[in-house]
């Protein structure tokens, strides 16, 4: 390398030249997620919204059981780690006991749509004033790639080695469409993070969710369709192609319920 002295950089590293920095609402810990996974992007969007709204001191997050069990290592906010599936029960109590706080649960498909279905549906039906972020990658990532309620028909996992079939495993579960029909939900949307434009949309959705909490509108529910290249046993680029061709055909992106009104035929 050429001799680049510190003096040269001194002229460049100036506040007016700043184009990017890591939000202080994320910690310096190295993300434990697999390369290519969507979790890290969603974490950052969540953290950036918290920073932009200036509500770090008023936000309480809930980490689930699953790949994001250690989300509290990466998000620089007060957080609680919940038993498998129970994040929205925790969120219910925290939100009711601290009504001026912003309570956000962060859950995967096994946590939210299998073991925690009861808590999810009842929190949404009560219209708890919380934001639920639901990462749907159609597989159990943490435990090594087993069938999730959201696994697509035909998809091979370690517990559906010949592909998901209805007789054995039942249908792929669109819980987001289900909670949208409950009167307690105010904002229900499905987003993705595999393209920059989609990431920006997700950030807007998260912002909307926090604004809804501020205005005491009830439950906001954001599904993020993400890839799990490790669990799907694909290279990251192939996983994204598979996501676009298969996942998004069944899990259609976009708003489902806005301002308490359904905006899409379910």
């Amino acid at each position: 390398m050429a001799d680049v002295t510190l003096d040269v950089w001194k002229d460049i590293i100036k506040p007016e030249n700043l184009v990017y920095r890591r939000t202080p609402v994320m910690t310096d810990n190295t993300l434990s997620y697999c390369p290519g996974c969507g979790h890290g992007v969603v974490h950052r969007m969540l953290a950036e919204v918290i920073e932009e709204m200036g509500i770090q001191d008023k936000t309480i997050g809930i980490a689930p059981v699953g790949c994001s069990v250690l989300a509290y290592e990466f998000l620089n906010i007060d957080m609680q780690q919940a038993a498998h599936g129970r994040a929205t029960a925790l969120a219910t109590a925290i939100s009711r006991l601290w009504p001026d706080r912003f309570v956000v649960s962060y859950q995967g498909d096994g946590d939210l749509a299998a073991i925690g279905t009861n808590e999810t549906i009842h929190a949404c039906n009560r219209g708890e004033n919380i934001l639920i972020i639901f990462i749907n990658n159609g597989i159990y990532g943490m435990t090594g790639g087993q069938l999730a309620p959201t696994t697509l028909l035909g998809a091979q996992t370690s517990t559906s080695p010949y592909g998901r079939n209805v007789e054995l495993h039942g249908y792929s579960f669109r819980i987001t469409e289900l909670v949208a029909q409950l009167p307690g939900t105010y904002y229900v949307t499905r987003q993705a993070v595999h393209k920059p434009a989609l990431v920006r949309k997700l950030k807007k959705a998260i912002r909307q969710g926090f604004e809804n909490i501020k205005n005491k509108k009830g439950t906001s529910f954001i599904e993020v369709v993400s890839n799990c290249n490790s669990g799907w046993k694909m290279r990251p680029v192939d996983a994204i192609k598979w996501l676009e061709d298969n996942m998004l055909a069944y899990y259609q992106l976009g708003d489902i319920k806005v301002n308490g009104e359904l905006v899409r035929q379910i």
Partner: protein
Amino acid sequence: MGEIRLMKGNEAFAEAAIRAGTDGYFGYPITPQSEVIEYLMAAKPWETTGMVVLQAESEIASINMLYGGAGAGKKVMTSSSSPGISLMMEGISYMAGAELPCIILNVVRGGPGLGTIQPSQSDYFQATKGGGHGDYRLFVLAPASVQEMADFVPLGYEMAFKYRNPVMILSDGVIGQMMEKVQLFDPIPRWTEEEIIQKCPWATTGKTPNRERNIITSLDLDPARQEKHVLKLKAKYESMQQDVRYEEIEVDDADYLFVAYGSSARVCQKAVKLLRADGYKVGLFRLITLFPFPYKRIEELSHQTKGMMTVEMSLGQMVEDVRLAVGKDQKVVHYGRVGGIVPNPIEVAEAMKNQIIGG
């Protein structure tokens, strides 16, 4: 002093909850304790003290609501009965692991399974030895009167926050359902936001710039750190011995002792009178804390007595701890009824005569 009322045990507990400055009650109906949530819903404490009352979708949700509320520094409680408490076991283990204070009332009914809605004391093992997974203990209080159903609420919070540990109030269907005179303590205000932050600096109240983020979790994947954590919990459970509580009734000159708690202790109290009237020197050792267990005092009493009889509405659970306390030399016999049957003082006195005094 406080107001005197005639109340059911369950109602006294609910009224005491409001007066003790509880921030949140989360529960699910189950016989024989549904009066707790019914009383709270009728009393509407959210209009007076600001206390939150919520009927959850299940006992599983209830206990996890306690986890969330306690993790955020609030005084929270639930109540249930045996099958519902079984459902809570996972959450209780998590709360013990994450060191979260709360009160859990178990108005015990007979099991196993759906069992019966009648009174029982067959959840002693579950309350004192674990029940959920992992090495943990609860601080367990056993009320024997409607008065104690009220008084153990503030005492329970004191212990829960002193040790940062769940407290179980192990009652039973008799104490929950019977009506007695109760003198209610004067209301204690709920903690303010400043008080919560000062008393619970560990709680997730929102990360302010002057401190690191607070994390409530029972997870540590590093074996060395997790071992250290579990050993710290062990030391905490051992230190609870300083708060051991019991009551001695006619023990000083006793040759024989009943050892009992809760409604069985009330039955034994009458049996002591019957036996004393017949000239037998019998006393009653009533446990108030089941964990910590008064091993030391029972061991001391074994030297001045000739035999002990535990009376429990179970097949004999606490008797194992009494035997541990006294060793092999002391005769310890269990007398119990199950299936929801409450023994009467005459049969208990007869059992003492036949199995200990004459046996």
